[in-house]
């Protein structure tokens, strides 16, 4: 019971702060919208004919993946803030297992990302993607799974840093490469072998692929089967959350 209370309150705190900070809410939504319309809209003119689909529609699953990537990573590395400004100590001396803290943080990141993903999904009619209820449910389920996976990865990253000065390093060397090597903006098959290899171990690749299955329903644009995507995401989630739990007991 103690553990459930802790998980609950860690989630409640993050959600409350997320809803309270209107500017953060806006800026997390602004990024994907800007990418979708400015990058997607601009590139459409260049590439649409060769793809058999408007480019802006092609990148929509990728933009959803991006929303989840940033939402989850930001939510998890707020742990660094908590370490720097002290609240983490209050959490760590509580009679609660480290693993519950990790689960609470991973779930709060997942829920916040899911909230953002839902809002991005609302844009789909504007860019000409019509979704049935089943597709929406499928897309949200994949979003949640992907968000949990990335949030757990974010917790692992957070255990290695003590202050927020490292923030831009995390962005430049982890988040941006993950985004570009996920097939979100362009198909990965045409990349050089080494980058293709990296994209294969990038969990976001499978998340974006699963979202393409859900939203585009066109097998020309997907690289793996749905079963493979979901399987990899579940396996990666379990591995990441275990490592995060281990690191939390050892390092913090």
């Amino acid at each position, binding site marked *: 019971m103690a553990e459930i209370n802790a998980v609950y309150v860690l989630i409640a*705190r993050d959600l409350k*702060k997320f809803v309270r900070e209107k500017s953060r809410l806006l800026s997390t939504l602004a990024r994907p919208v800007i990418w979708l319309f400015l990058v997607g809209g601009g590139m459409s003119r260049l590439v649409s004919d060769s793809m058999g689909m408007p480019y802006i529609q092609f990148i929509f699953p990728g933009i959803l993946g991006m929303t989840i990537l940033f939402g989850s990573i930001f939510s998890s590395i707020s742990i660094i803030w908590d370490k720097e400004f002290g609240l983490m100590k209050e959490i760590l001396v509580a009679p609660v297992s480290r693993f519950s803290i990790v689960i609470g943080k991973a779930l709060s990141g997942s829920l916040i990302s899911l909230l953002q993903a839902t809002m991005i999904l609302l844009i789909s009619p504007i860019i000409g993607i019509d979704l049935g209820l089943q597709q929406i449910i499928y897309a949200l389920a994949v979003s949640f799974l992907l968000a949990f996976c990335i949030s757990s990865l974010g917790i692992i990253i957070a255990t290695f840093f003590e202050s927020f000065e490292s923030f831009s390093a995390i962005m430049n060397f982890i988040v941006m490469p993950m985004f570009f090597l996920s097939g979100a903006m362009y198909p990965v098959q045409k990349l050089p072998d080494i980058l293709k290899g990296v994209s294969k171990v990038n969990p976001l690749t499978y998340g974006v692929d699963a979202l393409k299955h859900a939203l585009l329903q066109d097998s020309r644009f997907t690289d793996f089967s749905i079963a493979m995507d979901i399987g990899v995401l579940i396996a990666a989630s379990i591995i990441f959350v275990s490592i995060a739990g281990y690191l939390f007991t050892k390092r913090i």
Partner: protein
Amino acid sequence: MPVIKINNLSKSYGEIHAVRNVSLEVAKGSIFGFLGPNGAGKTTTINILCTLLKPTSGTASIAGYDCNTESSGVRNHIGIVFQDTTLDKDLTAYENLLFHAYLYSVKRKDRKKKIEDSLEFVGLYERRHDLVKKFSGGMKRRLEVARGLIHDPEVLFLDEPTLGLDPQSRSNLWEFITKLPEKQGVTVFMTTHYMEEAEVCDQIAIIDRGSIIAQGTPNELKKSIGGDIIYIKTSDNEKAASDIEKLLNLKPTIKNGEIYVTVERGDTCLPELIRTLGESVLSVRLQRPTLNDVFLQLTGKQIRDVEISAGATLKENVRSHRRKFGRD
């Protein structure tokens, strides 16, 4: 019945011996003062006691739970106010306490009342819905004390609770702290390097460079360095001196036209002396040693003059930097 037992506790960081062979017992319901200069090992000891740090050797237990092996039992029975603020500044006072109540699984039906009572206790009830970032340093400290009490701990740790507060907030906070054992039935274990604050403690241990160098009640410690000094001026110092010698069985000294004598308890001895010497007394003065004198005698240095290590200076800088930008 000791509620905290520490036995031969040591903690080293490589070459740095932060805590060396510390043994202590703290009686239930008392206020225990852990005094020492910067870098003495106070925080390290507290971190071991509250299970955040593993000792290099030795044992410690709180309320019968071993700090090393039964951390969950220990954590359920302690409350802590850390040296640096550990509040969420983007939540309100009430929300911070609610967060704590959930972490400690305070029963649903008690939650609201416990939170409101402790807010009342520290005088922050009216401000409960304000964001913590709008609080002054003293208010944050009080809020942290309130938070530490919500789950009815047996022991409340206060690591330099008054650091960085102005004299008024300090005495304010002290009022709360001294009321704690009586009102909340909690044992208080606190550190400070303001010696005068330690006067209210029932027991004191002085730590320097990781080792305990003295232990006892404030009065015992003061007595250990010689007791009270009475200075008397009379119309006939020679005669008075021999009268005093007869009365107290102690040899007084005459210096600068004043007689002075060191006695165990100046306050009870003085009236007797005046009665004996009668009309001849011109002036009297009683000087009691302070804990500062104790520290001075034991370490050969004033606690506040102790050379601050580079690390401690850096820590202070960071703190004042954070304060400046309102993030602390």
